[in-house]
């Protein structure tokens, strides 16, 4: 998956990866690629941050009994 610049395809892979929507096989291949491609890593990081922020819509205080465990 050699490329220069964020392409349509790599952005797509990064988005699917961050959502956990790749098959295990595809995810492994993409992870191999990530280990050598800074640009795709940056894409994944920004999409990871995006999905983490989504959780703000669902924030809930857990009951104290969980903390006490």
């Amino acid at each position, binding site marked *: 998956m050699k490329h220069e610049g964020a392409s349509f395809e790599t952005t797509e892979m990064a988005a699917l990866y961050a959502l956990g929507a790749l098959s295990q096989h595809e995810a492994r291949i993409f992870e191999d690629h990530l280990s050598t491609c800074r640009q795709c890593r940056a894409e994944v990081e920004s999409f990871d941050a995006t999905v983490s922020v989504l959780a703000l819509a669902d924030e809930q205080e*857990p009951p104290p009994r969980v903390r006490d465990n």
Partner: protein
Amino acid sequence: LGSPQDSLAPQSRDQDFTALIQQVADGDQSALTTLYDASSRLVFGLILRIVSDRSTAEEVLLDVYTQVWRQAANFDLRRGAPMAWIMTIARSRAIDRLRSGKHDQNKESIENLSNLTGASVNPEEATVHSERRRLVQSALDTLSPEQREVIELAYYSGLSHSEIALKLGQPLGTVKTRTRLGMIKLREALRPLMEGGL
């Protein structure tokens, strides 16, 4: 470390979280408690959204921090931010539980769950939460229903792109395109929150 209402991770908080995870890896239980206090609201919210059952969500929450305790030494900042690492564990455990079917069938609706607020949230924090929630909601509103559907099926139901295509009776290429366009829109709309604007 920031107060709990700052529990999502812009860069300076990433550093605090990274330091805490390092201390947890060294066996420091109080660091785990601090990490829990700063992150558990987000983690619990995500789990609850996925499993839709409070008692199951509590069990999964406990599992998540047990896993954080055990695997803290494996955390690698080069592979992602600390909060994203914890959220990935949470999502993965919650989806495992969802698939195993070991949850109460009497699901509360998401709307009802969203209306519950934690007893210990003070009014100032509640205002921040409500503002954040509004921003995320308006970001989600920028998506077309089709884009939102594929993103939610992937993230909250744990379906792969091919499973989503099958479920919706749509070509795989369509599902991928909807996902890509939707995620780009969300990334743009949520950028102020990601950069710690709140």
